[in-house]
């Protein structure tokens, strides 16, 4: 499993590296990614709930190996916080693994690491 991140402010990149530090999974920037195997997408939500155009364009081409989504966002948006993840999760029928405020906290990192582990175990079955 790869972690593919799309970022504007650097928050999803920092979050992806925190997850990688804990799990050892490979981290790839969306601009450089050409997935040929399962990946977890880390993206962000702009303002009131938009999926970034770069992410939408990428998914248009590479949704086949998408296994889950994490969205960073701003807690200030209340019910729309991290909505890009809801949109992607519904559209591609993949789990919304974590909704994180900005670059996330230790608990968010752990949740994603646990998911990666469970997913790897299931894939090996």
């Amino acid at each position, binding site marked *: 499993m790869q972690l593919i991140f799309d970022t*504007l*402010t*650097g*928050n999803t990149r920092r979050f992806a590296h925190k997850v990688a530090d804990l799990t050892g999974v490979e981290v790839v920037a969306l601009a450089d990614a050409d997935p040929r195997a399962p990946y977890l997408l880390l993206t962000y939500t702009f303002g009131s709930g938009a999926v970034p155009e770069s992410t939408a364009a990428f998914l248009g081409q590479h949704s086949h190996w998408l296994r889950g989504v994490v969205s960073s966002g*701003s*807690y*200030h948006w*209340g019910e729309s916080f991290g909505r890009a993840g809801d949109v992607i999760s519904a559209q591609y029928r993949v789990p919304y693994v974590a909704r994180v405020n*900005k*670059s996330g906290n230790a608990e968010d990192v752990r949740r994603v690491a646990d998911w990666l582990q469970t997913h790897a175990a299931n894939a090996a079955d």
Partner: protein
Amino acid sequence: MQPHTDPFSATNWSEPEDGFSTTFYEKYTSQLWFPEEIPLSNDAIVWKSLSDAERWTYIHASAGLNALDTLQGEVGMPALRHLVDGHIRKATIQFQGMMEDIHAKSYSLMNKTFLTTSEEREVFEWVRTQPQLQNKISIIMGIYNDPDVSNLGLWKKMVVSCMLETALFYSGFFYPLYLAGQGRMVSAGEIFNLIIMDEAVHGVYVALLAQEKFAEMNEAEQAYALAWYEDTLMRLYRNELAYTEMLYAEVGLVDEVKKFIRYNFNVLADNLGVERSFEDEEINPIVRNGIKAKGTTHDFFSAKGNSYSKIAVEALTEEDMDDIWPEPRRVTRKEPARTPLLEALAHD
């Protein structure tokens, strides 16, 4: 004033200076709102049911925010707009400045709605004499007025702007969110939510510009900049703790507000791409509920409210006219497609 050496150019929105400013500009224009659109009359009744201590904290928290938004609109944004390069960036920051002025007016309108004239005067005088509030303003103002306009100098100005909007406002935001989270003062709470959403985007935009400036510094400058950041942040944080103790003692929320301030200082760090200054903490659940609280839409045509989205505009065409007046206006014309509703109207 130096004479222009280069010819003055126009703003070219087809070839933006970067990949994000246009998005922010459009975000700002799409979420534009005015306080007059959110009636406070229901809250005026609730206001009378609050205790003296609750009213005191509420109105002084808002008045402090008024001063800070006035500072941003009048000093901060013009300083940044003057110093950043690029027509679109300048336009985006100028728009931000106007939003700050609208926020300041919102606070003033709340005072006008809830207070008597003499109470109003007392609050404005309090702003002028409250030591921690004036200290906060003078630290920030000092950076804005600093003649250093090197990368480092400009970065500092951007950073204090973000400090204000992403962290230092939150000692004031806490209380209205806390009451809105309990279903009290919900219309004013909606205004606060609109302001918070504006400030959240401002904080990201100016932080992106700051990240760019930071990347242009050499290693020694970056090390100095980070030491300055930690030092300035701690100075402002200590001041904020004293301000909070004064503002929230009577309503018994001092520790909860301090937690909220630290939480938002960490958001600031994330926006700027620097190390977080504080341990992970949770936001008070009532405040979180105040942020989540769904607003009501007061005005059908503009769909305003904190679930706000600006209505999209589309040009009228011949077909629209045919839809509105289904009677054949031109006998030679093909029968237009009708929606069931218009069909029903046509047969009315």
